[in-house]
């Protein structure tokens, strides 16, 4: 804002505290910079003397009091406000309270006109003093949805690799023509059911009738576990419906959180990387608590994780369901409830990537307005447990749905964690990315920032965690200009049961990510690997704070790798090319998956069995 348009205010700053007056000193400088007239009292003056001085100062607009809370301090502040009123100071000036433990509720209890607590931006206080709306301005500054692919043109820089990919993906598309699967049929039926349920021209009765017909067809493509639900209302083990009372309270909780949320700024001076966290506690209520907490502590986006059995079961359930174990069940209603809890600028991604419900999940995510999804045929086939042919056809269709609903999708190369070397998993990554580009979708490359079995064996990280991770990013960048989002989460396999160690490791990997200017990162909580159950919110906050701190620490400075990084980069790029040559030569992408060309049993990759022999012509 132009300083000329600000109405000058007279502000008195009172450090009502024995020692802590730094915040008021900073505020004092900032207010003066904006042309306001300020008086800063020294700390630790008795109440009566402060009041006496205040009565002698004319035309004050604001009195800013700062105080840390402690035993008896509430009464002290209560007395201050009473004294100010009796001395007629409140008639002229608004009295504002600030301090680490101050909340709006506490300010109300103490009788102050406004309260600012931990996490307050100085600009927020200045906006209040100047009578400006603050949230809008701050939203536009740092909480704004960004399209991850927007700043990339997907142009290839390595022509040999481009030609190989072109050959392989042409074959995949050709192979997929006229093929379908139960998963694809369900996705189409689900899409129709959603369309009908949202059709305003139909009466409820007409909707129900039409949906009933489709539902019968849908059930014919489901596993017994799901059929039992639709026909007899029986839910799988450890799954239950939330009661209407629970849902009512959840709605209230969402409303309250939306009202009270106060966002922390994740990055310092930088625009990237966006920071994502995953949720999937099993319970939508707990998930929403995690989401709202993550948003408040600065996360840009959140990921939905479903239970692993969801990927191996044909068909999806319905309703707001809670699951006693890891992974939150994918249903339209669960996802809709979670979506309703999100801040409008929070990026939301629903992973579809690896199982028998990949196309249907993509449809639900798309229809609910998810920003992103996650699809990866190679990982899902080799380490995700799904049959390669089945996931290839389902993946093809899911990518088309992602394109239709304008959801960029990321490809996690988690087969590296099974033992597949990075260059092989990158070959698979690039195949699916190229396939997506042909299908007019927007792929996001997701190399791992991890301490994988392959590097442990080959000793590539014996000296440091930097060189090899740098090499991976640089290699991909030398091939194509595509968005890169290391995950999933960064620092995989470097965590321990020690929360401090785990937080620090995530923070340092975040530092490397920002130094490399990648587009986004996914971070784990500090107890994610060892929680033995749902992760705790405190641990969730640990790593968000850790990442924030290194972003502040590093600013625009860079981490410098050793000369090894260049060697590794060359090695990886050559490995990618060799792998692609073999796949192209094989002439069948699906067979290449079965035969281990993109990751073999020796590497630690095993073609999945779920959905074997379910691909059909038609």
């Amino acid at each position, binding site marked *: 804002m132009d300083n000329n348009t600000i109405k000058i205010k007279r502000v008195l700053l009172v450090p009502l505290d024995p020692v802590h007056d730094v915040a008021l000193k900073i505020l004092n400088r900032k207010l003066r910079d904006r042309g306001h007239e300020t008086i800063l009292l020294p700390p630790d003056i008795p109440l*009566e003397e402060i*009041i*006496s001085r205040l*009565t*002698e100062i004319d035309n004050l607009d604001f009195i800013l009091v700062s105080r840390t*809370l402690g*035993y008896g301090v*509430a*009464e002290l502040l*209560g*007395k201050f*406000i*009473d*004294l100010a*009123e*009796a*001395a*007629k100071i*409140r*008639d002229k000036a608004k009295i504002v309270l600030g301090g680490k433990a101050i*909340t*709006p*509720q*506490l*300010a*109300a*209890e*103490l*009788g*102050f*006109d*406004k*309260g600012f607590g931990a996490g307050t931006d100085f600009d927020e206080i200045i906006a209040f003093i100047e009578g400006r709306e603050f949230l809008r301005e701050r939203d536009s500054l740092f909480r704004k949805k960004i399209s991850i692919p927007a700043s990339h043109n997907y142009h290839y820089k390595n022509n040999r690799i481009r030609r190989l990919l072109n050959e392989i993906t042409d074959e995949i598309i050709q192979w997929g023509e006229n093929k379908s699967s139960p998963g694809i049929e369900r996705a189409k039926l689900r899409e129709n059911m959603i369309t009908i349920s949202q059709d305003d021209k139909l009466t409820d009765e007409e909707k129900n009738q039409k949906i009933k017909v489709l539902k019968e067809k849908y059930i014919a493509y489901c596993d017994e576990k799901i059929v039992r639900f639709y026909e007899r209302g029986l839910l799988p083990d450890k799954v239950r419906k939330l009661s209407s009372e629970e849902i009512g309270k959840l709605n*209230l909780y969402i*409303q*309250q959180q939306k*009202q009270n949320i106060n966002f922390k700024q994740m990055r310092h001076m930088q625009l990237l990387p966006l920071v994502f966290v995953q949720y999937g506690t099993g319970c939508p209520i707990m998930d929403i608590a995690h989401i709202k907490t993550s948003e408040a502590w600065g996360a840009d986006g959140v990921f939905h994780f479903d239970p692993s059995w969801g990927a191996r079961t044909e068909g999806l359930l319905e309703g707001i369901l809670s699951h006693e174990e890891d992974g939150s069940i994918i249903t339209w209603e669960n996802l809709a409830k979670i979506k309703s809890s999100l801040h409008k600028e929070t990026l939301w991604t629903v992973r579809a990537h690896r199982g028998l419900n990949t196309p249907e999940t993509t449809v639900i995510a798309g229809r609910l307005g998810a920003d992103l999804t996650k699809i990866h045929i190679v990982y899902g086939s080799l380490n995700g447990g799904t049959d390669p042919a089945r996931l290839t056809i389902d993946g093809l269709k899911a990518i088309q749905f992602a394109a239709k609903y304008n959801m960029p999708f990321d490809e996690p190369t988690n087969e590296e964690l099974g033992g597949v070397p990075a260059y092989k998993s990158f070959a698979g990554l690039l195949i699916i990315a190229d396939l997506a580009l042909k299908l007019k979708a927007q792929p996001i490359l997701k190399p791992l920032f991890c301490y994988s079995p392959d590097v442990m064996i080959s000793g590539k990280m014996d000296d440091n965690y930097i060189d090899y991770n740098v090499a991976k990013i640089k290699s991909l960048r030398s091939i194509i200009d595509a968005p890169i989002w290391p995950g999933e989460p960064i620092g995989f396999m470097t965590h321990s049961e020690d929360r401090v160690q785990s937080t620090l490791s995530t923070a340092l990997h975040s530092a490397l990510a920002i130094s490399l200017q990648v587009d986004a990162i996914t971070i784990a909580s500090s107890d994610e690997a060892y929680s033995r159950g749902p992760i705790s919110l405190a641990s969730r906050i640990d790593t968000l704070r850790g990442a924030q701190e290194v972003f502040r620490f590093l600013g625009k400075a860079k981490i410098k790798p050793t000369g090894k990084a260049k060697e590794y980069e060359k090695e990886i790029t050559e490995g990618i090319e060799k792998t692609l040559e073999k796949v192209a030569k094989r002439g069948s992408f699906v067979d290449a998956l079965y035969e281990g060309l993109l990751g073999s049993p020796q590497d630690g990759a095993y073609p999945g069995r779920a959905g074997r022999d379910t691909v059909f012509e038609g």
Partner: protein
Amino acid sequence: MESNSKVIGILGTAKNTGKTTTFNFLLEWSNSEKIKPGLTSIGYDGEDIDNINGLPKPRIFIEKGNTIATAEQCLFPLKDRIEIIEKTSVNTALGRVIIGKAKKEGMVILAGPNKGIDLQTIIQKLKQQRVELILVDGALNRMIPLIHCDALIIATGASRHTDIGLLVDEIESMTRVFNLPEWGKEDIYKDEIREYKNNILIFQKNGCLKQLSGHSLLSQKTFSNLISIINDPEYDGVYIPGIIQETILKKIADKYYQLFQGKTIIINNPTFLLIGSREINHLKDLIGDLLNKGINIKTLYNLPILAVTINPFYPKYDRLRKGSYEMASIDRLQLHEQMTGRVTFPVINIKEKESSKLLMEVKKFLKSGNR
């Protein structure tokens, strides 16, 4: 049209002294007697967990048809249960104060006006809703806004001090201040008091008056000005519209009593003297001392105290688990006995049978004429 409803405020000596318990007791009674209540608070009440010590607090349960005044942010979660009658222009840290009526029974959070002038506005708004009894819950040790009520109940207890002697001394001192006689000459000087509301006024025996700069007796400078003038035997009284500090009053009693002998010090209202004291406990002796030395203290406004409620429980700081508190108690019988012996108002523990005594006092007050 406004009703003639009366306003009872609950003033605490500290946090957790039992204000909301007393408030709830009267609320429940008024609902059972079909006396239409209007409810507000000068703080933040009805939350389940205390904002400061994290201990459970009494919730506020209202019946269908009850009228409340609370901040919009507290009303938001209740918007299905409360019909909004008016969005007032009174602002708080939690948004504007809303007047609402319960469509259904349930819990509410009350966070109303935070200063006297705003409380006055809200009381008028509640009266427009034709309520019959307005209850104003206090906050912490805050007392200044409550002067706009018609009567007060003082809540004290172990949360203020765990030393029963100190507790009793304090209440006895407060009793003394609230029992100060009203000045009775305000009609003569009505216009002047209104015109010079921001100035200390010195009255002459001949009916003239002189004004001093400053409205509170807080600084040595103002006090020096005062004594240089009051020296004149022509002056017979001084009115202090703002705070009067206990230390200055003590100086008058100890050093300058001859200057003030036979003269009257008039305060605006009892809370302006209480707030000026670091240790309220000493006020009873100080007032006694002044009277013995021939110095009168009177108050321009006053309001009746209906009762003193006592709460033997207090949150005890847990030294082993830093930052946490646990419930503890002092001897409730001792507290009751000593307090009753020294305080002229009825002393009541709301949690005991004697709570009916409080209702008797309230009924008596409601029947009495308007102030």
